[in-house]
C-alpha cells in the first residue's frame, strides 16, 4: 500500500470538501462482503475529502480490483476515551445492513492509523452534486426521491437503536444508479449500549446549522434529534443551503434556541415547491421533540407520494454531471464547533 503521505505530494488538485460529504460508490449497496485487513491489498490513490482528523482516499481493493473509498483516521489525534467512541461508531456501521445505509467492508489498524473501507459511491454527496450543478437547490420530485430513501435508512437506524446525529446533504451519498445512502456515522451514538458516559469528553457533534435545539441545550436527546436535522436537510436541498448557513456557529446556536423554528419560504426559492413540502418540513422542525413524527410515521406523509424510483435521479440530476473526481474543487469552508458531549 502506498503511504498516504506519498499520495499528497503527487496529487494535482485537492478538493476541499469535508470528510463524509464525498465518497463513494460504484459497488452498490448489495456489496456487503468483508474485505481483507491487509493494508498491502489496497492501492491508495488521490484524497477525495478531508476532515479534522481524517482523510478519505479513492482506492482500489486489489484482490477484486474494486474501487473503494478509504477513510484514514489518525488515532493518535484522539484523546483517552475517544477510542471507545470510535469503536461504537464502527460497530454501528458493521451491525447495519440496509440499502440506504453505507456499509463498511472492513476496518483495520496499521501504525497509529485506522482504515475504514467503504464502497465508493461515484455520484458523491447530495451537497457536492448541488454545489456542482444545482446551487439553488433541486426540483421537488428529486427532493422527494432523495429524502424518501434517506428516511428509509434513518427508520432502519432508529429501529436498531442508533441515532445518526449528522443528517445533512453532505452525508447523503448517491450511487450512479440513483441510490441514496446515509453515510458518516462520525459521531453517531448508540442508544443500546449504556456504558459509562461520564467525564469531560469533548466530542465533535457537527455543524450547529443542522443541530436540534435539545442537542444544543445538552439536555439529553433521542432519535427525534435526527428528525430535526432531516427537516433542515430538506430546506438545504430546496434552497442550496441550511437556514443559518451564513452565520458563525455561536450565532446559529442563539438563533435556533431563541427564534421560531426555521421554515421554507416558498416565495423566495428558485424552483416552485408545493405546500406539502413546507408542511413536511414544519412537522420536523418543532422545538418540542415529542411533537416531531418518528421516521416511520413521516414516511407516510403525503409529500413522499410523489417520490419516483431511484433511476429518476440518474436522469434528473446525474446525466450531465462530471464524475466526482473531475468536478472542480469546492471552496466552501465547513463551520464546525466543539461542544461537550451531553450526558446520556
Amino acid at each position, binding site marked *: 500500500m502506498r503511504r498516504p503521505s506519498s499520495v499528497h505530494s503527487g496529487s494535482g488538485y485537492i478538493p476541499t470538501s469535508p470528510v463524509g460529504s464525498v465518497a463513494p460508490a460504484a459497488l452498490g449497496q448489495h456489496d456487503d462482503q468483508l474485505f481483507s485487513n491487509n493494508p498491502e491489498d489496497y492501492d491508495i490513490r488521490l484524497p477525495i475529502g478531508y476532515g479534522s482528523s481524517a482523510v478519505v482516499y479513492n482506492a482500489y481493493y486489489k484482490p477484486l480490483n474494486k474501487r473503494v473509498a478509504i477513510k484514514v483516521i489518525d488515532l493518535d489525534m484522539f484523546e483517552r476515551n475517544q*477510542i471507545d467512541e470510535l469503536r461504537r461508531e*464502527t460497530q454501528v456501521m458493521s451491525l447495519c445492513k440496509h440499502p440506504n445505509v453505507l456499509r463498511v467492508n472492513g476496518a*483495520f*489498524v496499521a501504525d497509529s492509523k485506522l482504515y475504514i473501507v467503504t464502497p465508493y459511491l461515484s455520484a458523491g454527496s447530495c451537497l457536492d452534486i448541488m454545489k456542482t450543478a444545482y446551487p439553488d437547490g433541486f426540483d421537488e420530485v428529486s427532493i422527494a426521491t432523495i429524502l424518501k430513501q434517506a428516511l428509509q435508512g434513518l427508520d432502519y437506524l432508529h429501529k*436498531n437503536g442508533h441515532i445518526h446525529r449528522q443528517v445533512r446533504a453532505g452525508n447523503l451519498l448517491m450511487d450512479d444508479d440513483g441510490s441514496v445512502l446515509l453515510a458518516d456515522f462520525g459521531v453517531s451514538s448508540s442508544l*443500546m*449500549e449504556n456504558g459509562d458516559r461520564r467525564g469531560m469528553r469533548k466530542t465533535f457533534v457537527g455543524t450547529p446549522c443542522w443541530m436540534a435545539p435539545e442537542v444544543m441545550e445538552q439536555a439529553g436527546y433521542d432519535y427525534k434529534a435526527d428528525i430535526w436535522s432531516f427537516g433542515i436537510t430538506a430546506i438545504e436541498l430546496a434552497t442550496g443551503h441550511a437556514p443559518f448557513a451564513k452565520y458563525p456557529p455561536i450565532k446559529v446556536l442563539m438563533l435556533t434556541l431563541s427564534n421560531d423554528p426555521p421554515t421554507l419560504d416558498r416565495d423566495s426559492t428558485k424552483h416552485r415547491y408545493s405546500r406539502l413540502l413546507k408542511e413536511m418540513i414544519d412537522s420536523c422542525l418543532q422545538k418540542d421533540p415529542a411533537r416531531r413524527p418518528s421516521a416511520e410515521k413521516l414516511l407516510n406523509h403525503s409529500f413522499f407520494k410523489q417520490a419516483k424510483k431511484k433511476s429518476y435521479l440518474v436522469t434528473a440530476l446525474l446525466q450531465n454531471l462530471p464524475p466526482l473526481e473531475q468536478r472542480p474543487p469546492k471552496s466552501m469552508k465547513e463551520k464546525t464547533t466543539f461542544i461537550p458531549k451531553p450526558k446520556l
Partner: protein
Amino acid sequence: MNFFKPKPKTPHELARNLKEYIQKLDGPDKRRATEEISKILVAIKTMLYGDSENDPVPEIVAQLAQEVYSNNLLQLLVDNIAKFEFEAKKDVAQIFNNLLRRHIGSRSPTVEYLCTRDYILFTLIHGYENQEIALNCGMILRECLRHEVLTKIILNSQQVYKFFDYVEMNTFDIASDAFATFKEILTRHKAPVAEFLERNYDVFFEKYTLLLQSTNYVTKRQSLKLLGEILLDRANFTIMTRYIASADNLKLMMNLLKDRSRNIQFEAFHVFKVFVANPNKNKPVLDILSKNQDRLIAFLSSFHNDRSDDEQFNDEKAFLLKQIQDLR
C-alpha cells in the same frame, strides 16, 4: 377486524417452532429454516420489548421465559447463531439480553440458569473467533458480565486467557469489542478480580506484558491505560505492590515513556508515577531510578509541557520530579 391476519402464536408455539426449525438447519431445506427462524425471533423480540402500539404483557413474557429455559433455547440460539440471517443474529442478542435483565424479586432466573451451564458463556467467548458473529456475542457477553456470579465463572476458567489473542486481532471493531469485554471482566466486580489476579499473578502479567509491547497501536495504548486503572484501583492494592516491586516492569514503563506516540507516552506516565511515588521502593527499583536520576529529571522537565491546562498532571509531574531529585 382483519380476517387475513393470523392469530399471534403463543409462547409455547413459538418456542416449539423455533426448536424445530433450528433442528432443520442442517437438513435439505436449510433456507426455509433460516427464514422461519428470523420470523420467529422477530415475534419473540416483539413479545419481550413490545412495539409502537403495544407494551409487553408480563404474563406472556413470564410464559415465554419459562419456555426458553425448559427448551434450552438460549443454548440452541448461541450454538447456531452463525447460521442465522444478519438481522436475526442481532435479534438473538436483544432477546438474550432482555431475558438476562429479567428478575423476579431479587432473583434473576436467566442468571441462575446460566450458572449451571457455563458452556453457554464459553461458546459466547469463542464467538470472537468468527467475525460474522463476534459483535453479537460480545454484546451478550457484556450483559452477562454485569452479574458477578457470571464474571466469576469466566475468571475461574481458562477461557479468560483467550482474550489475550482476541484483542490482538487486526479487525478493528472486533479487536476493540473484545478489549471492551476484557476490560469489563477486569474492572466491574472488584473482589473476584482482585482474587483472580492474586492467584494468577505470574501467568496473567506475563501475558499482559506482551500486550504492552504489541505492534498494534490500539492494543498497546488501550492495554496501557487499562493497566493504570487496574493498578490504581484500591481493591487491587496487593497486586499493585507486587507490580511496582519489579525492576523489569519499571524498565518497560521507562521505555514506553519514550514511545513514538504521545498518547502512549502519556498513558505510560500514569503507570510510571506509581513506581516513583511508592514510599517503599525496593533496591532494584531504587537502583534504576538513581542510575537514571539526571536523565529522568531532564526528560520529565520537558515532558508534555504543553498540557498546561491539565492541573492534576502538572501537580503529579512536579511531585515526581521532587521525588527523583531527592533520591539519595
